[in-house]
């Protein structure tokens, strides 16, 4: 267990571990033996390893759902639901601003400067960014485009959706937590049978 000390600490702190955020740790976690060992170790702390359906991201959940656990999960869930729309709008905005033909996925790189430059000259993108920045999830008070963008990216970094490989350099890498977010959305959609399609209609295919 000794060699997994730093990993355990990250997991306990509530980090999501994916191939982007920590490649070595992710490899260890993909090993069933290690999973068992970690679960065994976490048992007295009422924690266990959880992963999404396609095992692209790992995090800690409760082993036993006592009252405290439920309470925490409820407030966590409320936060997640609240963050859905701002995160989705951010994903759309990045895709459109950078002229990408597909949605962001884990491992994609975003250069902050490029994003600012492209937003600067486009009134409608600016408008959307402004609205997004003032959403309470990001909660920017600034009027400046540059600081709005910086704040948005910093918040996403704090929430674990982005990784900043170098503290001084303004570029970010999308982590596997984005996959988790989409899994959550897919789950809610399926459970609640929301009219939200993700397959092109037959006409579009023909």
């Amino acid at each position, binding site marked *: 267990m000794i060699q997994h000390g730093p990993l355990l600490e990250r997991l306990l702190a509530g980090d999501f571990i994916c191939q982007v955020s920590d490649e070595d740790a992710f490899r260890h976690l993909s090993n069933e033996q290690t999973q068992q060992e970690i679960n065994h170790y976490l048992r007295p702390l009422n924690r266990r390893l959880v*992963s999404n359906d396609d095992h692209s991201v790992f995090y800690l959940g*409760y082993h036993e759902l006592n009252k405290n656990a439920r309470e925490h999960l409820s407030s*966590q869930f409320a936060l997640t639901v609240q963050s859905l729309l701002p995160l989705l709008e951010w994903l759309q905005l990045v895709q459109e601003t950078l002229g990408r033909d*597909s949605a962001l996925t884990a491992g994609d790189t975003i250069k902050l400067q490029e994003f600012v430059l492209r937003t600067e000259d486009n009134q409608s993108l600016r408008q959307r960014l402004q609205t997004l920045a003032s959403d309470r999830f990001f909660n920017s008070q600034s009027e400046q485009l540059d600081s709005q963008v910086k704040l948005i990216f910093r918040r996403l970094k704090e929430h674990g959706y982005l990784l900043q490989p170098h503290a001084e350099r303004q570029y970010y890498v999308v982590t596997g937590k984005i996959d988790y977010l989409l899994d959550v959305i897919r789950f809610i*959609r399926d459970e609640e049978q929301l009219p939200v399609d993700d397959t092109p209609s037959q006409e579009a295919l023909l």
Partner: protein
Amino acid sequence: MAPLDSTLTSNLFAIGAERLALLGKHHKALMQGYLDGQVDETTFSEAALKKLIAARILWRPDEQQPLALRPLVSELIASMVADENRRQINADVAEKLEQIRNRVQAYRDAQYKGDYSVAELQLQRLTEHVHDLSGQFEEAIDSLWHRLNSDFGFVSSLDEKIRENERAQKQLRRLLDGLDLLNFDELIELSEGNSHLRKLLVSQLQNQLSSHHSSLLEVQKRLVQLLAKFRQQQARSMLITNMAAFLRQHPKYQPADYPNRSELPGLFNQASAIRPQAAIALDKASERDILAELLQALPKPNRIELPEQHSASFAELMVDEEITARQQALKTDVENFYLKVIDLGGKLSALDYLNEQQLSWDSEIWLYQILADYQALPREEKQMFAIRRDEAPLSEVNQLMLIRDIQIELRAA
């Protein structure tokens, strides 16, 4: 027959060379025509246009249409520059196979007749056909790999990429069907009894085609994987767009209370953070050094020293033993001075006392210490003594008062 053949050949050579030169002569205008889909007739002279049309490089598809490159020329360019938008894949194997059969027959006929020069020529043509067939697959495979490796980057949208990928898969299926048409039993039969033919049709062609076959299967596998990736990306984009639209339309939307379900979905089981804290173990002797180091590394607080409230004796702050001893001696002498005043019961000048007792103190320090001791006395005791400073201004212009002497008098109780 031979002389006629050679004139034909030399004729062919002359015309071919001349027409190839035409391509080089007008290379820029023709390439522009390739990119635009039509050529700008004004860039050519009339004679040049005629020559280009006669050489079957340019044509007019329709009377109303502008001049354009002939499809074969476009295809040549596309293949030379690996332009995957325009590159064609020829999967027609049956025709080539038919030609090979005919050539083998003609070769055998010529050999039978003993016409060796014709047989030689037929063998050469046959070799070309075999190479053509193999080259056709090679070109197709090159084009497919090229498209794969660039992630279909030559089209911009994901939808187009998906369509291009599907088109590539169809081409690939046709190529594989074409390969199936090749029956090696037949080729073995065709080459029976002739080592040249066997080498050409069996060992060489078979080798090449089997390697093409495995390449094609590899390409097919990759194409299918890539298509799945494209579809996944498409699904993600659509999910994001549609879910965002839904949430915008239903701002009050609240999903069910999943965290309180008896069967908690794993996705929502996200435990609260635990941050392990640790401190230095004081019971561990080996960690004392570390602790000491840490202590030393602590930034020193910039405290403002507050003046202490006790005795105003200025020298008390000094710690040096010798100085302390002298300080003590001074204090004792000053105390004796005060005692003398009490004994005397009257007025006593400090400097007179200093001279009288032949003490070695500097007069200024002596006066200072007497003042200091006076100030340090408790209020009641202070009242027992009357102090009178013998002072005068420094000069007529400077009103700074200098103390020349001090007189201490015991007041009547």
